[in-house]
């Protein structure tokens, strides 16, 4: 029976004979079992010994092909993991902020930290999904706002929004915007639009599995600085220039307050420790190698630095007198403006 077997190969094992890279993108799950089936060498050896008439069909896979297939499989798995992570992050952010009375203008430090951490792998389209998801739940699209999104009563599909006075063209009249209703209903207020969009533009455009590991663009997301509030109300983040300009007791008390805030802000974004242990990790970061998917199939490079003695300070090379006017160019000494008077003219 086994001699007639080759055409009857079960359909899944097709990857064995065709180039694996071609099929790698189709699905990681189908690759993994078929590859693992190839790996036990005992079964392969038995089959190899039997038939001479079928030289290549049952041969063990080319290790090169196997490596390529595994590489692609790991990549796809990493991508799937990243997507699952983003999905769970979205679900997490839908429930933010933690307290129903939170003020979007002065969010609690813990909420800000969660938001920042969660948004790191996001693309702007994922952020849009988050907004949509929050709206479905009936909340304002901005992740730190506990209020409900507004609902328009009238049935029109568009609304005209008027800007403040003298905001139109040429400083006269009012600016007019025509906004589709669904865009308007995403948010609770115009200030939340600003805050949310301020975050959105900071997100990286490329998906997280294609980013370099040292890409810090999306990692340091800042929130919109809130404008100075009216007297008596509290806002956390203030512009620093405000404090410089203002004098008197008011400013000192406020600067203390702001100092607290900046301290907490730096606490949330703790810089990674730099040490000898971290040097390999840093190296990997620099190369964009930190993704575990790429580790396989690559040469593991161990870099050990040679000790350099710093005793003998190397003196800079001193140019000789003939280089005073720039020297010669490929043996030719130019007879420019400076050379006739100098030693260039022989």
């Amino acid at each position: 029976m086994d001699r007639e077997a080759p055409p009857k190969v079960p359909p899944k094992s097709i990857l064995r004979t065709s180039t694996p890279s071609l099929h790698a993108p189709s699905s990681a799950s189908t690759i993994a079992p078929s590859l693992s089936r190839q790996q036990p060498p005992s079964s392969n050896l038995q089959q190899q010994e039997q038939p001479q008439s079928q030289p290549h069909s049952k041969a063990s896979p080319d290790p090169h092909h196997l490596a390529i297939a595994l590489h692609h499989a790991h990549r796809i798995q990493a991508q799937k993991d990243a997507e699952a992570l983003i999905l769970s992050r979205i679900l997490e952010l839908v429930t933010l902020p933690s307290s129903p009375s939170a003020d979007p203008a002065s969010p609690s430090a813990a909420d800000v930290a969660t938001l920042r951490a969660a948004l790191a792998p996001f693309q702007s389209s994922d952020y849009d999904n988050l907004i949509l998801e929050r709206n479905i739940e009936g909340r304002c699209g901005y992740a730190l706002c506990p209020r409900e999104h507004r609902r328009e009563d009238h049935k029109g599909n568009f609304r005209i929004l008027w800007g403040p006075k003298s905001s139109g063209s040429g400083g006269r009249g009012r600016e007019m915007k025509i906004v589709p209703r669904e865009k308007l209903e995403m948010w609770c207020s115009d200030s939340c639009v600003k805050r949310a969009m301020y975050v959105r533009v900071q997100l990286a455009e490329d998906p997280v599995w294609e980013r370099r590991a040292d890409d810090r663009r999306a990692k340091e997301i800042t929130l919109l600085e809130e404008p100075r509030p009216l007297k008596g109300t509290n806002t956390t983040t203030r512009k620093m220039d405000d404090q410089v300009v203002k004098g008197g007791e008011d400013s000192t008390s406020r600067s203390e307050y702001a100092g607290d805030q900046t301290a907490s802000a730096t606490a949330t974004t703790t810089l990674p420790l730099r040490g000898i242990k971290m040097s390999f990790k840093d190296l990997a970061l620099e190369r964009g190698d930190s993704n575990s998917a790429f580790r396989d199939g690559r040469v593991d490079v161990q870099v050990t630095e040679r000790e350099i003695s710093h005793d003998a300070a190397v003196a800079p090379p001193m140019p000789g007198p003939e280089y005073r006017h720039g020297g010669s160019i490929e043996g030719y000494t130019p007879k420019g403006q400076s050379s006739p008077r100098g030693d260039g003219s022989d």
Partner: protein
Amino acid sequence: MDEDYSSGSQDAEREMARLWRTWRTVFEMLQDRGYEVTEEEVQIPFEQFKTKYSDGLGYPDRNKMKVSARPTEAMKAKYTPVKSKSNPNPQPECGTVYVEFCPDPTAVGTKQVRTFNHFVDEQNFHTGIFITQTPISPSAVRLLSGIPDRICEHFQEQDLLVNITRHELVPKHVLLSAEEKVRLLERYRLKESQLPRIQVSDPVARYLGLRRGQVVKIIRRSETAGRYASYRWVI
């Protein structure tokens, strides 16, 4: 027919009629996939549907509209993988199906999908079909397809208003069993990757609940040959 036709009851009647058509398509779909449904269920008349699934005001009550069906023997045979040395006694890769209509009239998000997923998982259904009135959000789609070992599908009510496979321009699609597929590949000396392909997201593939790797036989009428069969690999 009532004499005093208020606009409210007219609306209710219209919505009921739309839902009735969707309901029938769902049953036709289950039948075409090979689940056990009776002819009476498929051919349910409008009046009967109205009395059964409407609330007091005549509007449809989607909370009542839940169906589960077991696969027939023929379907089980079709979904059983071929015997192999490693798997001498293969089990059919299909099971009870559960269909639910989402009662929420507004946009459907992860919350509803999560409860649906939970229910499917808890009741140990093999396949779940979630039918909503409006499109569901992208993250909800991802969540729906995310449960391991279960298959959850999503349709919109308006997609099922008419049965697309009954249209004259849609050729007949027949799913091949694993054994038939092996025989086909042997007969034509092909690898499955050499077949033409059909996407999983293809409307007919969605209707039949095709899975990646299956082969479907498409029979069309041909002016010259009478009938022409082609095979497509689901990808």
